């Protein structure tokens, strides 16, 4: 999403995805004394991906808190703090390590409000560097959106641009419930225009990032960029693809997806998580269950991660997740009526 079209009157600056997240955290720390950051090596080290950077120098070790290597306990401390009046932003070094903290995220944070009959709130934000492409193999490359998206009580977002990374983080902080933000590691260095100051990007809203009439491509995180690259290529062949940046996995933006498929009659879902039982299954199902079903003139196509852990070998690693040529070939076959 072009920030200038979103916020025409607002000043903006070119920032990397990581800088935009840091900017959001700095704004939050400045505006709200109850905001704290927690995580492993987020202090002098600046975070495993240099996202917190110099925040410890600006806000001190009382608010930028290095935890021991204790994901379950650390996440749980954040949940307890959120339950009692603080607004913690908890960074996992890699989303994979959230597996160690599933108990506190899934059994506690997600359910406390409900179990306590609405008498409690857990406004915690979990930041999770995620995805493959860095040669870090099976335990450092996973995409857990669907896992967490399966849990009522959690909200799950996946920004694809610096502007949304900032806006969604600030929205997550204002949200009264736990929010999980997946930050794709390959995006951290990507630059884009970012509005200055405080603003929020609504959770639960997808963005149409390219309009078209031939096919709808719903993509998330890094896949948005691959889908846009494919769409530019397809345009040269006279195929106008509409690209939707999903942005939010839970809640999912049914209306935007349905409206697009009604228009194009064709749907391709592109996501990095394992293909089966993933985000694409939900998108396919919501179309199959909606009025857009009648407008479909070809089978829905899902491009997702291979049914395998992420391999180390770089060629295998690339082959394990959708790449631009995969999107191109599936769309071409779809519009030619070959599927």
């Amino acid at each position, binding site marked *: 999403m072009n920030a200038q079209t979103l916020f025409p009157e607002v000043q903006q600056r070119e920032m990397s995805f990581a800088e935009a997240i840091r900017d959001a955290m700095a704004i939050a720390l400045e505006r709200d004394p109850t905001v704290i950051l927690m995580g492993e090596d987020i202090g002098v080290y600046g975070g495993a991906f240099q996202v917190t950077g110099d925040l410890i120098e600006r806000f001190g070790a009382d608010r930028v808190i290095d935890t021991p*290597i204790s994901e379950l306990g650390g996440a749980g401390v954040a949940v307890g703090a959120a339950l009692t009046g603080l607004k913690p932003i908890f960074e996992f070094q890699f989303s994979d390590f959230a597996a160690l903290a599933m108990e506190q995220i899934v059994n506690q944070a997600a359910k406390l409000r409900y179990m306590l009959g609405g008498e409690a709130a857990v406004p915690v934000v979990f930041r999770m560097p995620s995805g493959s492409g860095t040669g870090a*193999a099976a*335990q450092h490359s996973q995409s857990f959106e669907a896992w967490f998206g399966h849990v009522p009580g959690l909200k799950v977002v996946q920004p694809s641009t610096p502007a949304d990374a900032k806006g969604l983080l600030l929205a997550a902080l204002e949200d009264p419930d736990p929010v999980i933000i997946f930050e794709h590691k390959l995006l951290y260095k990507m630059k884009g225009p970012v509005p200055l100051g405080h603003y929020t990007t609504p959770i639960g809203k997808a963005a149409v990032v390219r309009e078209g009439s031939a096919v709808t491509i719903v993509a998330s995180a890094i896949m948005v960029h691959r889908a846009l690259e494919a769409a530019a290529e397809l345009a040269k062949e006279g195929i106008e693809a509409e690209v939707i940046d999903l942005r939010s996995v839970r809640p999912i933006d049914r209306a935007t997806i349905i409206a697009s498929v009604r228009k194009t009659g064709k749907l391709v879902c592109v996501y990095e998580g394992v293909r089966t039982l993933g985000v694409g299954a939900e998108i396919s199902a919501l179309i199959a269950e909606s009025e857009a079903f009648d407008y479909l003139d070809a089978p829905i196509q899902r491009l997702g991660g291979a049914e395998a852990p992420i391999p*180390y070998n770089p060629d*295998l690693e690339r082959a394990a997740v959708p790449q631009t040529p995969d999107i191109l070939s599936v769309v071409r076959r779809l519009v030619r009526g070959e599927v």
Partner: protein
Amino acid sequence: MVENQKNIPFAFRHFTPEALRRALRKMHLIRLFEEGAEESYMRGLIHGTMHLSIGQEASAVASCMELTDADKITSTHRGHGHCIAKGADVGRMFAEFFGKETGYCHGRGGSMHIADVKTGNLGANGIVGGGLPIAVGAALTARRLGRDDVTVCFFGDGANNEGAFHEALNMAAIWKLPVIFVCENNRYGMSTPATYATAVKNIADRAVAYAMPGITVDGNDFSAVAEAMHTAVARARAGEGPSLIESLTYRWRGHSKSDRNRYRSKDEIEDWMSRDPIMRFRTDLIAHGVLDAAGAEAIEAEAKAAVAAGIDFARESPSPAITDVTKFVHAEAAA
């Protein structure tokens, strides 16, 4: 054996000269493997990241001195040294690093997952603390199947603050399982000092909570580590239960390839580098008449040649077929 054994350090009383020379060779192999890996990375031959154990060689090798292929180890993200100490072939290790089919994990695992289950190396681990309960499970197997093999569980100072550490030590203790927990305390978990992250002064103090012996040793002193291990392995084999050994050491390199060393001083690094555990062991070997300077040089040269040959083997090895992305996810159906 020499007269007046009291003044002779344990290792030089206990091991044969041949075993000691093999130990020196392994230490050199580890150092040279790490340097070879680093250089290959700089030259763009390998991708991803890596965690080098340069400076920690004595601890790894001394910890594995009394292990056979039947004994098991579990290792960490900083595991190259443990693999070599347990007897891994550097050619297959490099091949794994280069993502090749001939690597220990057929190119699927890379640096953080090198393993050789057949020789008792249950693998490095990308998850801090991930190997601790697995080691206890391996010890349970030995007990159930009536074998006398032991499991050595390597982990870092950072890992001792994971729940897995506490749960694993407790179970090993209540069931008196043959496992030796070796905490390589290199003072930092990434950038976080152990003195900040850990409530007790010595990690070995945590043994008290799990009713097992705990000892802190100079991890750069080959003999001190070997002696502590000897006691712990004997205890484990005798069915008396687990032990916790804290081995104090230091990593010379950054945590990984992206470390800017902002959390420690150059002086500190240089101070530790001036006390090289390999040179210290070499000097001791010469002092105790196990070898002479020329003999030590020859061992180092031989290790150098092995590393060079290993890199060549890795470079020339084939990559896995792209179509095999889902191979090894499950057992293959019998043809």
